[in-house]
């Protein structure tokens, strides 16, 4: 962007102040959310071995998620201020409530699956955990897309599907790695289906981004994207080829898929920084919107008065106010 259409090339919007905990949480939240769904459905089908392990990954993900979120706060001791209001205009507010509900429900459900505690409460808690796990896996996309960061905001229709795919593949991957192969058929299907869907939704998102897709081709975002694609492809291939026969292959494939889903979150997260740092991503699309006549923009050259009054047109003096 030339100097003449920016202020010394300085950014127009601010980069997020979020730190490493946020992409980690996107991963653990998605893992936990989809694992709860896998666990409950497997129970319904009578796959108790698989269900118990999926409840364990759901609980593990949900136990660590709030730690990431709290540690990212500027004032960690004020975490509970998140629960003093409920605002649909704030995906972070909605998400805090979803996470709280999921955490409670999954805690009860997992305890029941492993120890038989809370038999009555868990009849409600298990389906509740499974259902709340779904938005838990996708609201994080709403959180990013509901900002002024162009590469995120412009993915508002597609990012949630990319995140949902990553949640599916990581929940499948964790269950594949934790479960003896003969009980893990559903987990393998979920892992491989999620991986395929991750590749497809990633592509769909890129295509919809126009000029903003550039930021995925540079810097850390690009590196994480390459890592993610390599891990997802090799992990899915390994599980498909050997996951049924070999526990070792299942564990390795699961680890690769999980790493791929995590790297994908990092790639998206880092893309936001590249997008916010360069004013061209903010200004050029807005300028085009105005030139195409889709928006009037925020400036107006014609005054609403034709015969200006001199007393009003002169810069005011405060004592004359």
């Amino acid at each position, binding site marked *: 962007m030339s100097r003449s259409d920016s202020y010394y090339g300085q950014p127009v919007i601010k980069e997020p102040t979020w730190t490493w905990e946020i992409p980690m949480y996107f991963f653990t939240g998605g893992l936990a959310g989809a694992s709860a769904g896998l666990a409950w459905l497997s129970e319904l089908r009578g796959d108790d071995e698989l269900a118990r392990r999926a409840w364990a990954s759901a609980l593990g993900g949900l136990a660590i998620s709030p730690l990431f979120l709290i540690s990212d706060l500027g004032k960690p001791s004020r975490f509970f201020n998140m629960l003093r209001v409920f605002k649909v205009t704030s995906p972070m507010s909605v998400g805090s409530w979803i996470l709280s509900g999921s955490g409670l429900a999954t805690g009860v459900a997992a305890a029941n699956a492993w120890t038989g505690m809370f038999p009555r409460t868990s009849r409600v808690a298990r389906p509740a955990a499974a259902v709340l796990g779904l938005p838990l896996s996708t609201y994080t996309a709403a959180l990013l897309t509901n900002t002024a960061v162009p590469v995120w905001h412009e993915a508002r229709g597609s990012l949630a599907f990319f995140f949902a795919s990553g949640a599916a593949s990581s929940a499948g991957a964790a269950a594949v790695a934790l479960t003896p192969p003969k009980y893990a058929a559903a987990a393998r299907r979920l892992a491989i289906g999620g991986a395929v869907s991750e590749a497809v939704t990633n592509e769909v998102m890129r295509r919809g981004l126009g000029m903003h897709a550039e930021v995925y081709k540079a810097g850390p975002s690009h590196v994480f994207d390459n890592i993610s694609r390599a891990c997802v492809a090799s992990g899915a291939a390994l599980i498909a080829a050997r996951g049924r026969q070999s526990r070792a292959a299942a564990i390795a494939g699961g680890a690769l898929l999980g790493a791929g889903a995590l790297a994908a979150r990092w790639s998206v997260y880092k893309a936001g920084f590249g997008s916010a740092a360069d004013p061209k991503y903010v200004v050029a699309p*807005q300028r085009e919107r105005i030139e195409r006549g889709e928006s009037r923009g925020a400036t107006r050259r014609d005054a609403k008065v034709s015969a200006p009054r001199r007393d009003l047109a002169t810069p005011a003096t405060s004592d004359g106010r």
Partner: protein
Amino acid sequence: MSHETLAWPDSYGDKAKPRMGFFTDTTVCIGCKACEVACKEWNQVPMEIEGFSGKSYDNSGDLHANRWRHVKFIEEARPQNVLHVDSEGLATYQEGDGLRWLMASDVCKHCTDAACLDVCPTGALFRTEFGTVVVQEDVCNGCGYCVPACPFGVLSKREDDGRVWKCTLCYDRLKDDKEPACAQACPTNSIQYGQLDDLRERAEHRLARMRAAGQDEARLYLADDDDGVGGAGAFFLLLDEPEVYGLPPDPVDARRDLPKVWTAAAAAAVTLGAGLVAAVFGGRE
């Protein structure tokens, strides 16, 4: 009252005050930075030494947690073609050298549709009885969501403190019927404070006079209710495109796309549910 926001004036009932704001007339700014200093003094904003930037007289960078007024300096190799410079009080003209020097004091826009306020999950950001947007420092937990939400890049975190800070439009002074510190300090009245309705009227007359004097590039920025942020409590008279001043030409409050954002999240959640059902019940084994 006009220029209604989501929470003002309705949620205040009889306690609502007229909506107050700033009209920053950059055509008379002389770049003295009295506003930056007055703001820091009154609001006890921490010092920040940024060194020599090489960007004209702007050594203070941008708006952030520790700078709530920021004066920008733009040097353009473009002589001005204005007929009655003296009588119109246009201070940004340097005679003879063909250089046009634009100066502008930037500030939080106190948007009608304020993205920062929409996304704040704690309710720390709120709409005051004057229609302004203020962070309550005893509520903010430093989640940082407002930072990338603001389409103008106004907010940031104070590192040692963890919370976000920004212009309050001197909420404390307003409650005492005093004008904000920057407006009081401004020697040219480039920063004018008052009721938004009065300021807008004043701005229209000023714009008409600038145009009549041959300053065709004069334009109002954020002075209309039908722009992407519903107009702003702090609006500007500029002499070039907004991006030249580091301002977005068509800022939009992300809330306008919220239905799409939530629809996508819900549809993806349902798809994920369907995928889980297919994986668990769809096999032959």
